[in-house]
């Protein structure tokens, strides 16, 4: 691997951190392809750097999301049961699968999720009557001065998606928001902003479950990882602030396009 200027790595981290926080994805889904395809970083090094960067992004953006009341902490904690088990498992089996198998399966999944998001982008998951009881895991969301209620539906599906997301996070260093956010929003009744913020809240813990293993295995190249993470911090803070200003429908469509492009790009890598 040739020496990559730190500034390039910092800017790469900043750009992926910004988009990651904006979409609640953690940014790894863009960082791994950028590091491997554009900067020719070995895939295992890129995954390890991405995991650390995703933890930085998720932790930084969660401070803002908490302040805004967008994080559903009880739902996040419940789903962390599945994401951490998935993250630990994914980190452990990362060495035993071929990259081709992983890229093909993951790419196809992303493309499908992109189509699902695009088809359901006009859907609203909130109840206008603020007096309706949200249930133990549901919540209230204040938007444009109005209070909305949402209820959590299909919890087993949310848990399954979280388990898969955790495993993918551990295997590919992508955070897992790319699976959780579309499922929580499209099938489980969670408004997109709450889904993105709650996903980011979980991603730090999910990433840590597998990052310990990558760190212990010696896959973390310190200067490269540090430069990427340093860039990801301000990028994610800016992204978390901007998410408030973007329309929910635009956010969903943007995510759908991103999922489709990244999914197809990853699937094409296997040809």
């Amino acid at each position, binding site marked *: 691997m040739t020496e990559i200027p*730190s500034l390039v790595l910092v800017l790469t981290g900043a750009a992926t951190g910004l988009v990651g926080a904006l979409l609640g994805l953690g940014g790894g889904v863009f960082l791994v392809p950028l590091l491997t395809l554009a900067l020719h970083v070995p895939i295992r090094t890129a995954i390890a750097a991405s995991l*650390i960067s995703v*933890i*930085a992004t*998720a*932790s*930084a953006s*969660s*401070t803002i999301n*908490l*302040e805004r*009341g967008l*994080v559903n*902490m*009880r739902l996040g*904690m*419940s789903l*962390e*049961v599945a994401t*951490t*088990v998935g*993250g*630990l498992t994914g*980190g*452990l089996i990362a060495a035993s699968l071929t990259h081709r198998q992983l890229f093909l399966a993951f790419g196809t999944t992303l493309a499908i999720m992109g189509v699902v998001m695009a088809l359901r982008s006009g859907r609203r998951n909130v109840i206008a009557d603020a007096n309706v009881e949200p249930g133990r895991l549901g919540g*209230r969301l204040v938007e444009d001065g109005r209070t909305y209620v949402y209820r959590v539906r299909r919890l087993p599906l949310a848990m399954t998606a979280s388990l898969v997301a955790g495993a993918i996070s551990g295997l590919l260093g992508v955070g897992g928001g790319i699976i959780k956010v579309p499922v929580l929003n499209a099938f489980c009744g969670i408004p997109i902003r709450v889904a993105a913020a709650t996903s980011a809240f979980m991603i*730090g*813990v999910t*990433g*840590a*479950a*597998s*990052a*310990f*293993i990558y*760190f*212990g*295995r010696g896959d*973390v190249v*310190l*200067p490269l*990882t*540090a*430069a990427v*993470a*340093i860039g990801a*911090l301000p990028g994610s803070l800016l992204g978390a602030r901007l998410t408030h200003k973007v329309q929910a429908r635009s956010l969903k469509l943007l995510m759908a396009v991103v999922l489709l492009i990244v999914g197809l790009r990853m699937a094409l890598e296997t040809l």
Partner: protein
Amino acid sequence: MTSHARRLERVIEVALTGGVFVSGLLLVTGLVTASTAPLWWGVLLLILTPFVRVVVVTVGLVLDDDWPFVAISLFVMGVLLSSLWVAVRL
């Protein structure tokens, strides 16, 4: 949202901000001085920050007598400790 829940969220915000700030400072120091020790500690602290968040949440839930969620939080902490244990043995 109850004042207890809001206070817990505030403590989590402080824990996350503190972890990110100190690790960021260590990473910048390591990059500028080209020394490995601050980079190593910076990365380790960054990975530990979400773990600290889980500890803070667990303590907050114990103080709130919210035992079902204390159990959930302890399970998550157990998985993270297992991961740490595996990493140390690698």
